[in-house]
Structure formats: C-alpha cells, structure tokens
C-alpha cells in the first residue's frame, strides 16, 4: 500500500451539508494519514460548518466558481502546503474512497490517474444519448492522450506533482473544463495519463449536476470545448519530479 502522507483529498462542495460529514469521516477511516480539503463553492447552506466539524480543512470561496474553480483552489492549496498529489473526490459520496490508494499508486508512473466507471468494476451505468456522448469524448481524448481511456468525464481522479504544478495555474473553469478540457490540457503539456477501474455508488445526497435529457447540448458543448482546447498553444511541463517510466 502506498503512503498517503503527501496526498491531499480535495472535495469541491456546493450545498452538500446532507452528505459531506459522512464522506469526510469515511475518507479519514479508509485513508489514514491523508489530508482532506473541502473547497466550499459558495454554498448557501451549512456545508462549511459541517465539514469543519467533521475535521476537514475548509477553504471557503466567496461565490460559486464551479467545479473547475474549486479544484484550482485545491491545487493551489496543495502547492503551497507541501502536498505532492491531489485526489479529487466528490462530496456527495458518489466516489468510494477505497479506490484512492489505487489511483495514488498509479501516479508513481503517471501524472494523472482517472478513476474510470465503465472499466469493469461497480454498477454505475449511463444510458442512451448521454452514454454515446461519453463514448465519443472518450475516443477523442484517448487519441490525444495516446492511451486508451473509457471514462473521460469522471470526476474521481488523481494528479501527481507535475500535473498539480500545471493545474494550480491553469485548471479550466469553463463548462466541462474540469473533466475533458483539463485532460486535453495535461496531455498536450506532456503529462502521462492512465485510468484505474473504480466502482461508483449512487449519490448520498444532493442533486445530479447533469440532466440526461440535455445530452445533445452536452455533447455539442463538449466538442466545442475539445476543439478550442486543441487549438490553444500547449503548456510547458516543469522538468522536475518526472515519474519513473
């Protein structure tokens, strides 16, 4: 089992007072020694107080920035507080923290590890147009990243030191930026990306952030985000802390 001393679990939270305490407790119980940072994304409920009481470090954004903004805050926190790795875990209990060690383990030879939902484990299932949209995205991003990826929209993912350095300054805040665009950005900067099969659970609280009916709009905007991400000049990767081949 890998050491989690230098690993920070970042949980972006928007109005998650119902679920977050349980998720934090589970993370601490499952992953001894890990740092937990809750980034409150302008919640109007008691998310901050609940998360603090549960023992997490809380960074409280003054207004809602979306998952991308919350995650960039988390990456900045990791950078200035001596954490090497950042693992993004949803605050609604959808991501099982039991999958975190496998993700961190994968960071020894990669810069980004995605917890993939369709890779065999668990019973997560998306249907219809939304599933097709995810397949299209996965195919395109796999090609850009030069590695087979099946679930590019998963929010359960880990970033190693080189990726943290890039994401702390450039993590996108646009629609879908926190999933697809961030992968394109990392891949084009030269980061090594891999995926690790994880199981997902139904949400413990809160409402889903995507309506399956809007799949067509979703795919359209995702493709636009992809094209624009590919059009931008690639970012430079810092030479230090290269993961072993």
């Amino acid at each position, binding site marked *: 089992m890998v050491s989690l001393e230098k690993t920070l679990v970042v949980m972006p939270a928007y109005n998650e007072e119902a679920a977050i305490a349980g998720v934090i407790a589970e993370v601490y119980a499952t992953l001894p020694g890990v740092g937990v940072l809750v980034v409150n994304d302008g919640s109007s409920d008691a998310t901050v107080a609940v998360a603090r009481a549960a023992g997490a470090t809380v960074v409280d*954004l003054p207004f809602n*920035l979306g998952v991308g*903004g919350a995650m960039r805050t988390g990456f900045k926190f990791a950078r200035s507080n001596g954490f090497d790795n950042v693992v993004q875990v949803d605050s609604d209990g959808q991501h099982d923290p039991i999958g975190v060690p496998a993700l961190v383990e994968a960071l020894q030879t990669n810069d980004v590890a995605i917890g993939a939902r369709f890779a065999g484990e668990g019973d997560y299932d998306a249907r219809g147009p939304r599933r097709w949209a995810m397949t299209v995205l996965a195919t395109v991003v796999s090609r850009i990243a030069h590695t087979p990826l099946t679930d590019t929209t998963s929010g359960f993912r880990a970033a190693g030191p080189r990726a943290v350095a890039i994401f702390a300054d450039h993590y996108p805040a646009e629609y879908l930026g926190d999933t697809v665009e961030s992968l394109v950005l990392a891949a084009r900067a030269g980061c090594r990306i891999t995926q690790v099969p994880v199981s997902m659970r139904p949400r413990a609280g809160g409402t889903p952030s995507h309506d399956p009916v809007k799949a067509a709009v979703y795919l359209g905007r995702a493709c636009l985000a992809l094209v624009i991400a590919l059009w931008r000049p690639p970012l430079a990767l810092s030479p230090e802390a290269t993961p072993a081949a």
Partner: protein
Amino acid sequence: MTVTTYVFGIVSAALVLLVVFEMLRRRRVRERHALAWIVAGAFALLVAIFPQLLTNTASLIGISVPTNLGFFIGVVVLFLVSVQHSAELTVLEEKSRTLAENVALQDERIARLEAEVRTPGQDPRA
C-alpha cells in the same frame, strides 16, 4: 434631402458625442472603452454634415443605396464593440475568479495562523 432631415442627422451625431464626453467627464466610462464610440460619433457627424461623402463612397464601391453603406458600417461598429465587451468580460471573470480563490486560501491561512498564535507549537490541523 430636406433641411429638417439634414439638421436631424447633425443633431443626432452631435448628441452621441455629447453623451460620451459627458460620461467621460463624470468618470462613468473609461477612455479606452469610450474610444470606439467617439470614433463612431465623429464619423457620423462627418457624414451628417457632408452627406455626399457617403453617396460618393457608396457609388465608388458599387452600393446603389447609400444608406445601406451607412447601415453596414453601423452594424460593423456595434459588432466590434460587443466583441470587445465579451473579451473584457472574460478577462474580468478570470481576474475575479483568481481573486476569489486567493481570498479563500488566505482566509484559511489566517485562521490557521491565528489558531497557531493562540496555542503555539501545535499544528491546528493535527
């Protein structure tokens, strides 16, 4: 063209310039944002005083109805100004996003340092 329409054109263009300069004077608008409106207003005033400028240019480039040239230029100016506003909005959003992130991070850091001052030697996160 009657005298009424001639005067109406000049007054309209002058009004545009007057409004923009008044807003500049009251610091309601910054010079860099007002520049496009000043240029457009000056151009409109010029055309209002010398309508044959528009007529001649239109026939020179083969537009049979000179007002269409006027409309076209108007649309182009409005388009450029709105694109510029979209770009500025994006810059401002990025700036406020960065500020919000840094404020939140500093809040957390201050709280941690205050706790440290109250109970020295202890890591409040431990």
